[in-house]
């Protein structure tokens, strides 16, 4: 592994994503990507008594399925890197009880998906472990309960609001021993905090757009590549308001994003015309995780995509911080994937 520029890691041993899983809730199951998910729950409760237990169940299901898809015995798994949006990241820590391996809890709000994948890839690439699980989750109701109002409370959301995805995505990153099949992790660009003074927790897309633009710019600056190198560049959850702003910021930096397909997981997850309740689009750590580990990895395996850059964006606010009138610090972490030859 080596450092490129100031923010990017190049994984010279090219760790392999052996298997992934995407488990979602009922609303995501009504969206256009339904067929790409491994498991769709038909109720938000998932047969559990509390929302927190439901999110944990989601995470446990996803980690189990990822190991199954990777064809890896749970005994062989060596490390688990995970995080979620709840206070003290309880979903991932409690799900880690069932895995019984050394665990690193990480928090990057909705950017946790790529943060955990970058760290897992670093562990594998540097020889710190052979098989590492990276994963994250979010649940619409736990997030509403913690960050906003009780789930059944009738408040009118503004047209900039986004809908937290109920879903969990996990990936097993393994050492590239020549026989391992799956997409390779080639770069990770870690983002720095961008805070441009936005305070509205119902307008996260606008708050996060500069962080996404900054990390994308840093990625191309550090690697010397141009957007055309990738078949697809996706942001995590900028949704219908943040994505065009990020496009304008990138145009100002002189990054020719028109060379590639530039989309957003929050827009891909739902059918915005039919699923009106999502308003501006999806958000949450589970959004970029399930779209990446379900839809995007699936397309890479089919050979439709060769190289992809995923830029997961996170708004690092807490209910306390915005009630105290603080602005929202945001971060974005990017991971570049490349399909690993035929059949991968």
């Amino acid at each position, binding site marked *: 592994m080596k450092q490129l*520029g*100031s923010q990017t890691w190049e994984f010279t041993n090219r760790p392999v994503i052996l298997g992934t899983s995407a488990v979602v809730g009922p609303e995501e199951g009504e969206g256009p990507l339904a067929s790409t998910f491994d498991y769709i729950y038909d109720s938000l409760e998932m047969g559990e*008594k*509390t*929302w*927190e237990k439901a999110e944990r169940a989601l995470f446990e299901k996803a980690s189990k399925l990822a190991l199954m898809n990777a064809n890896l015995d749970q005994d062989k798994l060596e490390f688990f890197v995970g995080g979620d949006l709840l206070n003290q990241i309880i979903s991932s820590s409690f799900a880690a009880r069932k895995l019984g391996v050394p665990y690193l809890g990480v928090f990057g709000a909705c950017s946790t998906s790529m943060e955990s994948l970058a760290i897992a890839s670093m562990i594998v690439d540097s020889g710190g472990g052979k098989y590492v699980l990276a994963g994250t989750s979010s649940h619409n109701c736990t997030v509403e*309960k913690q960050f906003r*109002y*009780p*789930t*059944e*409370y*009738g*408040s*009118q*959301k*503004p*047209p*900039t609001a986004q809908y937290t995805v109920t879903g969990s995505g996990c990936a097993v990153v393994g050492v590239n021993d020549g026989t391992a099949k799956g997409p390779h992790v080639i770069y990770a660009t870690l983002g*720095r*905090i*961008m*805070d*441009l*003074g*936005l305070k509205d927790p119902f*307008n996260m897309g*606008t708050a996060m*757009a*500069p962080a996404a*633009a*900054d990390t994308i*710019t*840093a990625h191309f*600056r*550090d690697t010397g590549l141009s957007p055309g190198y990738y078949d697809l560049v996706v942001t995590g959850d900028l949704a219908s*308001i943040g994505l*065009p*702003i990020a496009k*304008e*910021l990138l145009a*100002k*930096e002189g990054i020719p994003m028109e060379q590639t397909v530039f989309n957003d997981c929050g827009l891909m997850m739902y059918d915005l015309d039919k699923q009106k*309740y999502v308003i501006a689009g999806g958000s949450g750590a589970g959004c970029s995780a399930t779209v990446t580990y379900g839809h995007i990895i699936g397309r890479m395996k089919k050979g439709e995509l060769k190289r992809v850059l995923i830029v997961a964006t996170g708004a690092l606010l807490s209910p306390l911080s915005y009630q105290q009138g603080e*602005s929202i610090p945001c971060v974005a972490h990017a991971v570049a994937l490349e399909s690993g030859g035929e059949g991968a």
Partner: protein
Amino acid sequence: MNNKENLIKHGTKGRETVCLLPVPFRIFVQEVSILPAKTKKSGVKLNLDGLTPQAYQELAKPYVPSRPVFKNCIRAFLSGGLICVLGQGIQEAFMAIFDMSSREAASPTVAILILLSVILTSFGVYDKLSQWCGAGTAVPVTGFANSMCSAALEHRAEGLVLGVGGNMFKLAGSVIVFGVVAAFIVGVVYAVMGWGGAH
């Protein structure tokens, strides 16, 4: 000291911030007043580095749809009005059927509206209605009932005492606090002006 000499300007695309501090503090101010911090190491300066919060909010403005205030007002008027008509209907029914005066009928009318609101909240309907209705479902007594019922349901998982008991007034509490404060002020005004006594 000549303040003019100490003036420094650091340009940030179209905006100029003037710093009036003495020399030793200048560098410090320059570094913290621009968000985010400059790109270290690489030496390449991005346009984003010089973007001020004001300039960014100006740039983002055309993309951010504002709340449709007029439409929301119309919807709130219709839906809130409908709830009031329903309440009036219930009150008239009490008066006609049970031979109550309008004052006597008021309390059972409110109780029925609260019950309806709690039932709709429990079935997960009220929050969906309120996305359309806005203030129309928030302002009447049904909105107050919804705020208490939703909080009680949500925090049942944390037990009856710490969960339901401790959180039931999480949202409704401020209505009660400021209602009491407002009533106190009005009461003081009445007492001072000598308007009271009309029971």
